[in-house]
Structure formats: C-alpha cells, structure tokens
C-alpha cells in the first residue's frame, strides 16, 4: 500500500470529509483554506477562500453541490462546491467548531466554542434551497449545553429527530432536535474518561464511534446510547473512522503535539490503527505521519482511506487486495 502524499496545507490538518460518491475529498486545516482533492489520485481540485481563521470542520451535501465549513473566525460558511464561491456566512460571537448537514440537507447543526463570556452552544440553521433566500436565523439554539466546556462534535441522529454531541466534559448527550431538551447522556462508569475529540457516524445512522484523549475509542448505539464496543489504543485518540465495507474501525492520534519528544518519531506512535469492529482486536497499523493524526476518513466505497496529521500532510491510501482478505 503506497500512500499518496497530499501537501497542500501549510498548517496542521483538522478534518477530512469524502462526498457521497467517494470521488471528492475535502480537507480542513488551521491555514484558513479548505481544499478539495480528487479522491482517486490526490490531485488538488481547488480551494475555498474566504475564512480568516483555522477551519475546524466541514460537511458536504448529499448531491455534492454545497459545502459548509466552521471556522475559528467565528463564522460558518456555505460554499458552492463547483465554483468555490461563498454563498452565505453565518456569524457567531465565538469560533464555530463543528458542522453537520441533516438528512435531506435542509438543516445544519453548528456548534460554537466557549469564548470570553460566552458559553458553548449548539445552533440549528435552516438551509434554504436557493442561497438568495438564506437567512441567518437559528431554528433552535441549545445554550450552555456543557457549561464552560467545549463541544468538539455534534451530529444529527436518525431522521433528524435528535442531535448527538460530545466534547471536553467526556459525556455524550442526545438532544431532542425539535425542542432542545436533553434526552439521554452517558454515565461516568461506561463513558469516556477524558475529552471526546472525534465522532463518526455509521452509514446507516444506527451506531457511531467516538475517540477520546483517554486512549480509547468507543462504539455506541445511536438511538439508545448503549455502549457496544471499546477499542483501546496506547495513545490519545484524535480521530476515528469506520469502514463502510468491512467490519473494521480505524483510530488515529498520538502523543500530544506539545509533548512530542525530539528523540525518535516512533515515540509518538503516530499510527492509524485498524481494529476488528466486532472482536475489538487490533489488526494492523499504517504508519507514516510524523505528527499526531488529527483527521481520518474512509472513502464511502471502503477501498481507500485518508489521514490528516499535525504535520500538515494528507495521506491517501488505496488498500491492497490482501487487505480485503484479512482473517484473524
């Protein structure tokens, strides 16, 4: 498996997202410019210019026409995927951390960080079909859901009825997407022990995977919030992803960037580790980054995946045929 190195960002990667057809890969980094790549050969297609701060997260609509990005410049922006044109900008009074389109792409959930006097918040925006009609009013705002703690990721639950959020207080919460009422939360016993850094939904919205700095990734039932599986890694987890094709999960991370030793790059363990989703056993690892892995994404066809690191590289891996015959 020879990776394709995609060097287009000047700062650490933050997020990776494939479109539904699996031919496009969107990458976000701290360098203000989300970038679009051909998911096949790793060529750069174009960039989305307009943000004035680190871009934390993005999502692409089902028909690959719209892109939404959340940035530390306190805005979330809508883009025309094809032209790279900015369609709309939602302004907040604190950095936007995570964005997610609903089923049908008519709604988007955006989370904002605690900043100055402001607490963290979950905003639900209606996305108009015609960008001319777009308004910046929120359909729903859940204020202060985790107090002063940051929410790192919020996504839609099945049928847009719920919103699932996780962040610095290590608790996963399910909110009613209509009323904003708290429906469920994980208890301390089974839940994560430290900051939840990443969250990845299964293709059918039935379950999701979370990664945490407590060196574990956990698999949850999206409707009941029941813990299904736990995968232990030796290092803090920054990114998680699930194979849509095989029963594999991949988790990545590594020693905190500020604590990386200068002696040997192996010390940090900057490896994308593959686990058997059902047996929770480690299958193998993909090395290559020389900084912690911050983002992971599977191609929807399950035949390639890409990883983005603190080192500023995106590495695109097309699996060899032996990968599909792994037996343990």
């Amino acid at each position, binding site marked *: 498996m020879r990776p394709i190195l995609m060097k287009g960002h000047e700062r650490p990667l933050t997020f990776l997202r494939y479109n539904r057809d699996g031919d496009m890969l969107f990458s976000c980094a701290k360098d203000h410019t989300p970038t679009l790549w051909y998911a096949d050969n790793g060529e750069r297609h174009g960039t989305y210019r307009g943000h004035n701060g680190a871009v934390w997260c993005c999502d692409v609509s089902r028909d690959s026409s719209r892109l939404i990005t959340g940035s530390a410049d306190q805005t979330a922006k809508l883009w025309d995927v094809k032209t790279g044109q900015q369609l709309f900008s939602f302004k907040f009074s604190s950095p936007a951390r995570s964005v997610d389109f609903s089923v*049908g792409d008519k709604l988007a959930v955006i989370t904002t960080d605690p900043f100055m006097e402001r607490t963290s918040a979950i905003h639900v925006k209606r996305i108009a079909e015609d960008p001319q009609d777009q308004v910046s009013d929120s359909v729903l705002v859940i204020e202060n859901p985790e107090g002063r703690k940051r929410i790192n990721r919020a996504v839609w639950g099945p049928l847009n009825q719920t919103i699932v959020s996780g962040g610095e207080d290590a608790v996963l919460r399910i909110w009613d997407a209509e009323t904003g009422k708290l429906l469920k939360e994980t208890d301390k016993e089974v839940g994560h022990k430290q900051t939840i850094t990443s969250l990845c939904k299964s293709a*059918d919205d039935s379950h999701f995977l979370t990664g945490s700095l407590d060196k574990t990734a956990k698999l949850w039932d999206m409707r009941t919030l029941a813990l299904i599986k736990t995968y232990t890694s030796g290092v803090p987890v920054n990114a998680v992803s699930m194979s849509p094709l095989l029963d594999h999960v991949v988790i990545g991370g590594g020693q905190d960037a500020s604590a990386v030793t200068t002696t040997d790059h192996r010390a940090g363990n900057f490896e994308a580790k593959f686990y058997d989703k059902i047996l929770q056993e480690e299958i193998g690892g993909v090395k290559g980054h020389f900084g912690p892995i911050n983002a992971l994404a599977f191609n929807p066809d399950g035949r390639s995946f890409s990883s983005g690191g603190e080192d500023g590289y995106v590495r695109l891996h097309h699996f060899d045929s032996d990968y599909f015959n792994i037996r343990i």
Partner: protein
Amino acid sequence: MAELDIDTRAGKLGIDWSQVNLDSIQLPPGENFGIESDDEGVYHDDQLEFDTGFGNIIVVDNLPVVPKTKFEKLENVLKKIYSQLGVIKEKGLWMPVDPNTGMTLGYCFIEFNTPQEAQNAKEKTHGYKLDKSHIFAVNMFDDFDRLMNVKEEWEAPQTKPYVPGENLQKWLTDEKARDQLVTRSGPDTEVFWNDARQKNTELYWTESYVQWSPLGTYLVTLHKQGAAVWGGADTFTRLMRYQHNMVKLVDFSPGEKYLVTYHSQEPNNPRDASKVEIKVFDVRTGRMMRDFKGSADEFSIGGPGGVAGASWPVFRWAGGKDDKYFAKLSKNTISVYETETFGLIDKKSIKVDNVVDVCWSPTDSILSLFVPEQGGGNQPAKVALVQIPSKVELRQKNLFSVSDCKMYWQSSGEYLAVKVDRYTKTKKSTYSGFELFRIKERDIPIEVLELDNKNDKIIAFAWEPKGHRFAVIHGDQPRPDVSFYTMKTTQHGGRVTKLGTLKAKQANALFWSPTGKYIILAGLKNFNGQLEFFNVDELETMATTEHFMATDIEWDPTGRYVATAVTSVHEMENGFTIWSFNGKLLYRNLKDHFFQLAWRPRPPSFLSPEKEEEIAKNLKKYSKKYELEDQDVSLLLSEQDREKRKALKEEWEKWVKQWKSLQEEEKLARQSLRDGEVSDEEEEEDEAKEVKEVEFEDVIEVTEEVVQE
C-alpha cells in the same frame, strides 16, 4: 455547613424544620455514632504522645550521697556532665536533701530545654560511671509512673498455644512452576502469575512502594507509620509491622532475618545536615534490634548514587544465609556489627584511613575495601581483602596513579574483579584495566587484564552468575564493542582468556541470565531499548529485537523469562513485556503510570550440582510432560477463544438485524426528508457484502512443458 445550606437541602428533601423535634433524634451510642471508621489502622498505628509537660525532665539515680558541705561540688560536677548534652533550664537541676540529716538522697532531677535533649542525655549517660560504686541510672520523668506500677511479684507469662503458620513458600509449589511478579502502576500494586495465557491478577493493595525479600518469602510495603511485610500460602496477608514513622527506604539481610529501615528528616536550618534514623528489626518477631541515629554526614561516605542525605544501603550485609555481620562505612573507619549482640565486633571499629568503598563477598564473610591514592601519589591506592571476624588482611594490592576503582564480586564469591581507572602519563585522561582476584585459590592470586585497546572506555561490566565468565562493554559510543572473557579454560587452566569480541553493538547495559549462559545486550536510554539475546556458550545471537523506550530489564529468577518495562519516566507506552530467554515475545501488558516491576525471588535450589547436571542431560524426558500439558492447554484456550469470538459475532449480528429493521421502518420517513429521493444506500451495501463473501478459484490456463534434462 452553613445554616442556609441546611435549609435548602432540607427543602429539597421535603423536611420542614418547624416540625422536627431535635430532642427526639437518638444518635447511636459511642463517639463515632456507631459508624466504623474505615481507616481504623491509621488510628491504631499512631502512638499518641501525651504531652504532660514533663517530657524534658530526666531523673538521675545512684548519685553519691553527700553531706551539705559537698553539695555544691556534686552539683557542679553534674552540671558539667549534663550541660554538654543539652541546655539545662535555669534552676533546672534539683537535688533533694533529707531535711533531717542534711544529706542528699542520691538522686536528682534535671530539666532540659527540649524533650529531644532530655532523651539524648538519658541515652548517653545511662550507665555512666562516675566512679566504681556510682553508676548512673537515668530515666525519663514521664516513665516513672510506668516503672512504679510494675508488680512486685513476678507472674509467669502465659504460654500461648502453638498456631501453625502458613506455608510462606507455597508459591514455589505451583503446579506449572510459574513465577510471580509484582508491579506498581498508578495507585495499584498488583501481583501476577507469569502466564501468557491467563493474565489474571492475584490481588492488589494501594500503597506506595514495594520490595521483595531476597528469598521471596515476604513482600514489604512502605507506609507513613512504618514498613509492613506480607506473605502467605494463597493470599497475601499482613504478617508483621515495623513502626518507623515516615520510613523512606528498606533493606533486607540476605537471609531475610533482619529488616533495615531508613528515615531522614530535612533540618529546619538548611545549613545543618539532615537527621537520619535507621532501625534494624527482626523480621519474624517484629522486635527492634538496634537503632542508629545521627546526622546525614555520618552515613554519607562511600557508595555511589543513593538518596540525598545518605547512600543506601548504609549497612551492607555479609554474604551467606547466616546474616551474621553487617558493615557501615564512615570516615576513616569501617564499623562491622555482629547480629548476636548487635554490637561492634571486639567493640571496636576497623580503622582504615581514607577508605571510600567496601564490598562484601556474596557468600563469605570477606570484606573488600578500596583506599584511594594519598599525598598526591606518594602513597599508592590500595585494594585489600579482610576476613571477618578475625580482621586479618588476606590479600592486598597497591595500585599506582589510580583515579578510581570499582569492585565487582562474582555471585558465588569465587572471583573479585576490580576495575581500575588509571591516569595516562599526561594525567589528562584515564584508561581502564582490571585486577582479577581468585578468592578460592591458594594465596589468592591476582591477574591483571587489559583490554586489547587500552584506551577503550568501559561502559559496563558483569559477571556470569555462578559461572566463570564475564562480559565487558567497551569502546566509544554510539557503537561500542562487547567482549567475553573466561577465568577457566581447558587449555589454559587458571588464566583469564578472551572468548570473543562483538564489534559495534548498540548496547550500554548487560543482563546475564541468573543461570548463566545467556545474556542480554541492552541498549537503554539513547538506544531506545535495543535488545540482543546472546548465547555465550555458542557465541551466537539468538534474537535481536526492540522494546521501544525500555527503561528496565529483569530476568525471572529461573532464567526462563525476561521482563522489559517502560516506566513512567516516559509518558507513552508505559507497561511491561515478557520475553522468553531466547528473545521470543510472549505477551505485553500496557499500564499507564507504570512505576515498578519486580520478580519474586526464589530461594537457592536444594539440588546438588551433580543432580542439576543430570537433569540438564535428560531434559527431553522431563520436558515431554510439560509439552503435552502445554498442548492441552492451548487447545482448550483456542477452543474457548473460538467460542468467545462466535458469541461476539452472534451478538453483533443480532444488533445489526435490529438496526436493519429500524432502518427499514424509517425508510419512508427518510425518503420524505429527502424530498422523495429514493434511498439506495441499503442495496449498495448488500451488494458490497456479497462481493466480500464470494471467493473465486479459476484455473486460467494449464500448459505442459517438457523439461529438458
């Protein structure tokens, strides 16, 4: 709790204070309201000190009875004696006088400034001979009540019925002859059986620091109030406690009869030396045999490294199981104590000017000592062997232009290697050589060994346990050489001979197997945990591997396994790995905040060397049984494993089915959310599944060719 808080809490619980009759509440009797404190041990361990205010007064008995005329003279004598030991308070000395005769009564009271001074004065002058007939009997004033209450008549102590103790060495009778190891990580201390297949923990405490006794019978833990030893047949129970507040370090005698505990206290005034207290306990009875107090300076000479204040162990025990002697090095003297009386041998220390290091032979009561050069090289440095208790010098060697010496005893006490660092002629740098003493031979011959390249730096040295060989790492970093030497060969008899040199190894530490023959050349620290498992008999490498960032390496006591560990000095990948003797990775155990790993030592084998040899010869016969057992177990385990996996898969299938049905139910709802677009994801997924399951085996082409001969 503030009143407001109480009110709000009461409100929450639905209690109306006005309705509550406080007098009707009956609290359970007892000071603790019937609630047992869970830190019971703490209270009982702490001996409360009652401050009567008389703690600084001593009573001196057996004074001469003198008339009034001599009163003042005696008083002056006493003042002279006691003001050396502490500050006597003003009017602090009171000698009662018989009002009828005007004669003194033969005793006096002395009040010091502090209780410590009083204690000190008591210890130093009890038994002081003023003259032949007047030997002081000194007591603390506070002790008098207790002393007065001693019954006049002697009561025979009741004989307790004999309770057979547990077999403290039961772990040795383990059917699979497994070894145990203790680990400390985070707040847990755990004891494991070394077993790749069953990694179950035996039990755990939550304590600070642990250490095995040399023969593995006890595990000692350190607490605020002192040390405790644990042991037992099946589980670890506390066998004995040794009271020593804020104990910092412990050390066992080699036969585990005695335990030495150490405590040092930082002085209030930073210019003073810190105070050190060392106690020697009898392990089995828990009785304190002797304690030593003093400033850290008295204990700080000799020995490399150690803790601040004193070098540990302060007391070095003579080899062998008898635990007869222990020695302490201090300035210009070596104090050797014997355990029968816990006093100095012949009541005298051995005077050796400027001695800096002493080492016991591991098996005999022979002490080796090193004295560095004096007078700018006029007086040579000296290494000497001294027999204890006779204090006869068995052998000595003078060495010239020496900068430093280090002594290494071979584990069965047959050889002593002294690494000598000498100055070169210019005195700018040093080079090293070895002086090898053959202790068991007549007249103790000494051989001088120099490395092939004299200028090589010596990085590590290690004797083969119970063997005649030793290994040296020498040369320059980062790729030093490793050489092996033997003290005995068939051709050369009693000559040291080189067996071979391995060039350019990534190693900086040597770890011999406890049974000899095998050695690990380890590259710790800058080498990131390179490990080379080496067979010295065949002079061949068995395996080269790596435990990344490894900080600690320890062989199990039987030489079958090796544990390598990454301790909490590194942040990442803390935990330990177990290898077979030939470098095969057996299993890993990752634990955050990993502090310590220690194998449980085994007592020496009872088998005679001949018997051992016989077993080694017929190893095949013996090992058959174990191989069969192994096979059975691994079959069973793989069966269990399969079962477990099957169960997991089934459970997963169940979930997925449930999800699928929900997915099906919501299909229409989803379609409407997508403005009627047909959701086709499910079908795609099914297709993908099928692709995965089908396996093809196609014969593409078959051709026949004649092979030419």
